[in-house]
């Protein structure tokens, strides 16, 4: 195997690069619709025994769990049964080297009595977050999925009810090999917008025509003024009255040639614009309210014809609404639910290990009323304790938003780079590789450090003082 690939990898890489160029030209990339919460998958796929909709981040999470379980089975099967056995090579050995390195690392940080608990916690969080983060590197994740109608509900204060509105999306398009995709070159324009644009063009043309006529009228008036000055002064009014009929004639004449030419020109430009759009294979949607499969607008009452999930491109149905891609899998760490849950678990475990190590006295860290009446600065201790309490809640936010921000920004970075330079996002994939590893390490390491700090008595100085007094 190795000898076969020797010196040939570069050609494989070149081939993939060329394939990337081809795909980028054939299937123009699209910035997916970006939203923070995980997108719901089409209905009918509820979480069993609940009425919760499956989000694409949950799909990624399930993949992570399954991968971890497979990994667990693999490691549990291959690991040596005792210390005298020689460990097997390959992937297992790599994992063991990593495991041993991290074990040494954590025992250097938190090598106390609670090392086992702290290290197991560290390792679990590390593995879960690392796998979740690195999923963003797999091609197809965040980009391949359902094409769905992009709609939004909006409260209309005028009618005091929710209205389903369509927002900007793309036309659906049929690529090669029968793959449907939304075409980044064809912005979806709603029929209303199209009609409005037509109207605007007409109005503009009318305005241009009138302006041309006005200009002509001014010219005629000026010419008449000149003529009247040249002629006798007393019959000026008479001639003026008679000349009005001439003006009308002039207006008619202008309307028939110059003004109407300007009018046609504007309309022709509008027509050319529409034609260019048609030439790009873009069509304008039919004006009906969007109706995602199973989607029920809060407006209720009116039943509407559902739009199929995989519309036939080119059919009338396909053009009724703007389409966006709903990724089947979105990296789990871009969902606040995951990061928040892990952060809460981490902070709860910090409190747990603190109570386990120091007993109920650990809570005096937060509610430190012991010195309130003994020391003149007792009030400060109380305030500090309360600040600690707030600080621990802030830890939850800091943990969750650090991971979420880094990974969500990374995902957007990959979208945008793929959109701007379709064939060259790979340096950013390398960046994401490191960011994913570092964020996983930081999350797990901070958990370990905070857990270790909680096991260390904060009354150490007091004890020291007592010892000296004795």
């Amino acid at each position, binding site marked *: 195997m190795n000898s076969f690939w020797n010196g040939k990898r570069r050609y494989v890489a070149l081939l993939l690069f060329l394939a990337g160029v081809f795909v980028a030209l054939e299937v123009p990339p699209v910035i997916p619709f970006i939203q923070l*919460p995980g997108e719901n998958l089409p209905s009918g796929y509820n979480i069993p025994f609940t009425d919760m909709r499956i989000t694409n981040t949950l799909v990624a999470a399930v993949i992570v769990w399954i991968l971890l379980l497979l990994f667990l089975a693999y490691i549990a099967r291959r690991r040596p049964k005792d*210390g005298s056995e020689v460990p097997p090579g390959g992937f297992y050995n790599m994992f063991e080297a990593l495991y*041993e390195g991290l074990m040494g690392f954590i025992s250097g940080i938190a090598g106390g009595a609670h090392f086992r608990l702290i290290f197991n916690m560290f390792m679990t969080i590390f593995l879960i977050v690392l796998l979740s983060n690195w999923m963003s590197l797999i091609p197809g994740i965040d980009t391949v999925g359902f094409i769905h109608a992009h709609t939004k509900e909006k409260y209309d204060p005028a009618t005091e009810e929710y209205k389903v509105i369509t927002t900007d999306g793309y036309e659906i398009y049929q690529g090669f090999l029968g793959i449907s995709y939304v075409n980044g070159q064809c912005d979806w324009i709603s029929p209303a917008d199209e009609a409005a644009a037509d109207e605007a063009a007409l109005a503009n043309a009318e305005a241009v025509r009138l302006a041309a006529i006005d200009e002509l009228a001014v010219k005629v008036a000026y010419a008449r003024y000149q003529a009247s000055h040249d002629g006798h002064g007393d019959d000026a009014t008479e001639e003026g009255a008679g000349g009005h009929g001439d003006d009308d004639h002039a207006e008619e004449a202008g309307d028939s040639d110059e003004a109407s030419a300007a009018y046609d020109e504007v309309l022709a430009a509008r027509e050319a614009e529409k034609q260019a759009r048609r030439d790009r294979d873009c069509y304008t949607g039919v004006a009906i309210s969007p109706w995602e499969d199973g989607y029920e607008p809060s407006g209720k009452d009116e039943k509407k014809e559902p739009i199929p999930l995989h519309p036939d491109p080119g059919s009338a149905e396909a053009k009724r609404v703007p389409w966006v891609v709903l990724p089947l899998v979105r990296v789990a760490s871009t969902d*606040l*639910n995951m990061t928040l849950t892990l952060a809460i*678990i981490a902070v709860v475990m910090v409190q747990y290990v603190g109570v386990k190590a120091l007993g109920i006295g650990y809570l005096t860290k937060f509610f430190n009323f012991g010195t309130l009446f003994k020391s003149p600065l007792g009030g400060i201790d109380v305030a500090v304790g309360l600040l600690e309490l707030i600080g621990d809640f802030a830890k939850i936010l800091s943990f969750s938003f650090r991971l979420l921000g880094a990974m969500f920004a990374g995902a957007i970075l990959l979208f945008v780079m793929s959109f701007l330079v379709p064939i060259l996002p790979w340096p950013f994939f390398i960046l994401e590789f490191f960011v994913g590893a570092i964020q996983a390490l930081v999350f797990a390491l901070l958990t370990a450090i905070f857990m270790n700090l909680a096991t260390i008595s904060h009354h150490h100085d007091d004890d020291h003082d007592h010892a000296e007094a004795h």
Partner: protein
Amino acid sequence: MEALGINPGMMLIWLIAFIMLYVLLTRFIYDPLTNVLNERRNRIAKGLEDAAAAARARENAEAEAEKILAQARSEAQKVIDEARGRGDDVAGTIEGEARQEAARIQYEAQNEAVAIRNAELGNLRDQVLNISVAVAGRILGENISKTKQKALVNSFITDLPEGAKGLGGSVEVVSAMPLTAAEQKQITSEVGADEAEFAVDPSILGGLIVRWPGGLVDGSVRSQLNELARSLN
């Protein structure tokens, strides 16, 4: 609240899910895994301790071993030195003996050779005497008394030069022919030496050369012939 998407029902779901996940994860992952990891850490710590103790023990053992090793090394050195010394002694002894033996053999061989030569020369002396008597008789044409002739020849051989009489001390006498014991005794007394060593050198042809520490008297026929040859030239 509504606009932020806060939904108490959803939060409740999350809460339940979180608690369930916490309980399950704690039950099936955190508790057992933490125990396993602690146990493993303890085991490792214990293992490290044991290893440290073992290392300490090993260090001690190593020091001990080092000490023992050093001791052994020095002992071995001593043994080697001893062995080398003894070997050297033995070798020296053997060599000395061999040398002595060789010298002895050489000496004996020399002596033997000299003795054989002297014996040969002694035999020759009689023949020379006879030949000289016969030659003299033919030349003179008369029958010469053999005894007289022999005495003459003997005196030719054993004629002691003038300056060599009454010397004393130890002298070396070189003759052309081996001398008989009587002659030797006579010459010794004539020289007046306490001790005389007799050597034979046929190349001096006749007469005696007497050598003593501090001088020599050459009464040999060869030197006389040489002198004659010089004066004739």
